[in-house]
């Protein structure tokens, strides 16, 4: 209770700091003076274009996407009471990728701009609904297994649609796209996903009381007046909306949703509702930090963000499994 506000303060400061650092980091070195001056000067200078049109939207997108992944992870872990739950594990991310792949390669994107985020959202919704339906009533283990099964199915469907795609390079392109990246995103992408992320995050956050009550298990939560089916539905829609839209713009970015809540939990006394805001901040900090790292670490082409988060996240996952093995009977 005492450390909660402190955690939020520290994370906010860290986020602001990283945001500024991200404006100075790129494969092209811009003198700090030029970066700062670009905010005062017109938009025609090269430095101004690089800062305003490339680095700024990229940083904003990192914050938005990181925050939605963090909240989604916290909400899913709270709801399933399973510390391994995260959007990627429940098929949200692969579902969104499937939707985006279909939209991209069958030409819907050229018809109207919202096609890809909407398709991503629909894909996420369909995959998540299937996961929740398969895992219904079977406890959180069944839910995770259902997520694994659905992820397998959607991955197969992605391969199938690439197989059928009219573009011969589609398989290669989408392989790289699925690795997840914030490179070369623009303000258009920011405007495209912001409404979905805002709506999704608000929906997820509205289940805070229910998540707290669920600490006592489903029966007691229900006895406390929590409507379980409604809660499940809101979480389903909220995660699919926020993560689905985010994934359709950035590709799949794993482990942020898994890691962020875990980093926060001990600092706020493990209460699910108190994890949400700090987990959003932590998600944003992690993603922004990782994105800066991909720009500064150089081996040939830019390291893909999703690859980087997975490389860092997997050892964490191992650690978590080892820890669970020790604590569970």
């Amino acid at each position: 209770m005492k450390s909660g506000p402190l955690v939020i303060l520290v994370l906010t400061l860290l986020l602001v700091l990283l945001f500024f650092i991200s404006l100075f980091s790129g494969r092209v070195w811009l003198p700090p003076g030029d970066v700062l001056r670009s905010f005062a000067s017109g938009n025609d200078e090269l430095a101004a274009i690089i800062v305003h049109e490339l680095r700024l939207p990229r940083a904003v997108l990192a914050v938005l996407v990181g925050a939605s992944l963090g909240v989604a992870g916290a909400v899913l872990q709270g709801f399933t009471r399973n510390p391994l739950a995260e959007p990627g594990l429940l098929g949200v991310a692969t579902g969104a990728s499937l939707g985006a792949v279909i939209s991209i390669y069958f030409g819907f994107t050229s018809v109207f701009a919202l096609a890809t985020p909407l398709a991503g959202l629909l894909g996420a919704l369909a995959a998540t609904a299937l996961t929740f339906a398969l895992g219904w009533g079977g406890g959180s283990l069944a839910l995770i297994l259902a997520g694994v099964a659905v992820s397998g199915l959607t991955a197969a469907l992605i391969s199938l649609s690439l197989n059928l795609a009219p573009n011969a390079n589609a398989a290669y392109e989408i392989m790289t796209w699925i690795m997840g990246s914030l490179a070369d995103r623009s303000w258009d992408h920011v405007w495209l996903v912001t409404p979905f992320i805002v709506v999704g995050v608000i929906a997820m956050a509205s289940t805070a009381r229910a998540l707290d009550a669920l600490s006592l298990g489903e029966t007691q939560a229900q006895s406390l007046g929590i409507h379980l089916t409604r809660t499940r539905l809101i979480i389903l829609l909220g995660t699919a909306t926020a993560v689905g839209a985010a994934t359709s713009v950035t590709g799949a970015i794993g482990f942020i949703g898994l890691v962020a809540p875990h980093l926060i939990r001990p600092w706020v006394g493990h209460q699910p509702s108190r994890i949400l805001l700090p987990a959003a901040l932590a998600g944003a900090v992690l993603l922004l930090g990782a994105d800066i790292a991909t720009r500064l670490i150089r081996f040939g082409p830019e390291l893909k963000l999703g690859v980087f988060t997975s490389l860092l996240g997997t050892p964490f996952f191992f650690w978590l499994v080892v820890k669970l093995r020790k604590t569970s009977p």
Partner: protein
Amino acid sequence: MTRLEASSVVVRRNGRNIVDLVSAKGQAGDFIALIGANGAGKSTLLSVLAGLLKPDSGQVTLDGRTLTEYRGTELAKRRAFLPQNPRCEWPISVERLVALGLTPSLPAIGTFPEDFRAKVNATLTAFDLEAHRDQPATTLSGGELARAMLARALVGDPHILIADEPVAGLDPRHTLDTVRRLRHLAGEGKLIIISLHDLTLAARFSTRILAMKAGRLIADGPTAETMTSGLLRDVFDVDACVSGTGDTALVDFSAGS
């Protein structure tokens, strides 16, 4: 005046009536012990009485309105429910665990209201949990956890408490402590309904007995008159000897059944 009434309640599972035409009443001040063999349908009946499970036919009313007419939080404010072996799934502090009992009264968003904090403090004191206030609930002993859960159930001052085997797994001291608290609450005008396997406890502390067998209610009446060796033979298929009444009552099973 709280009145909970079940009429002709039926719950079907896999073509079998696991609660079969049960009708019963309870009111403020009753301490009802529900007894019956394993699988007799006690837990299912308690879930129906608590409004957590909709019966396939029949209905349960609280003060004349069926439970389904109540909004979730409205009902939750009036009755508390404790399932068998309630557990806490995150290592939250005992204080927060108890505060969860106020969930139905909380505003949808915002911080925990100040006057609620006072209620939590009072309940922590009443249940001797002061010393454990900041302890993670997952590290409590069985007895402490049962007490904390009871405190959680009662912090919102409900009119009805329904608990499924609240003393299962507790040592004698904690068992007695829990049952005494429940009787005290009934004395204060609450309606307490619990399922119990310890028949001596049921005989000593409850005011009324409901006995179930194979989904049917086969006895319903004041404890002193209802708890007889004849009933116990019917319910459990064992010979039992019931001696004494009230605080000295004793139920013993014969060796050669």
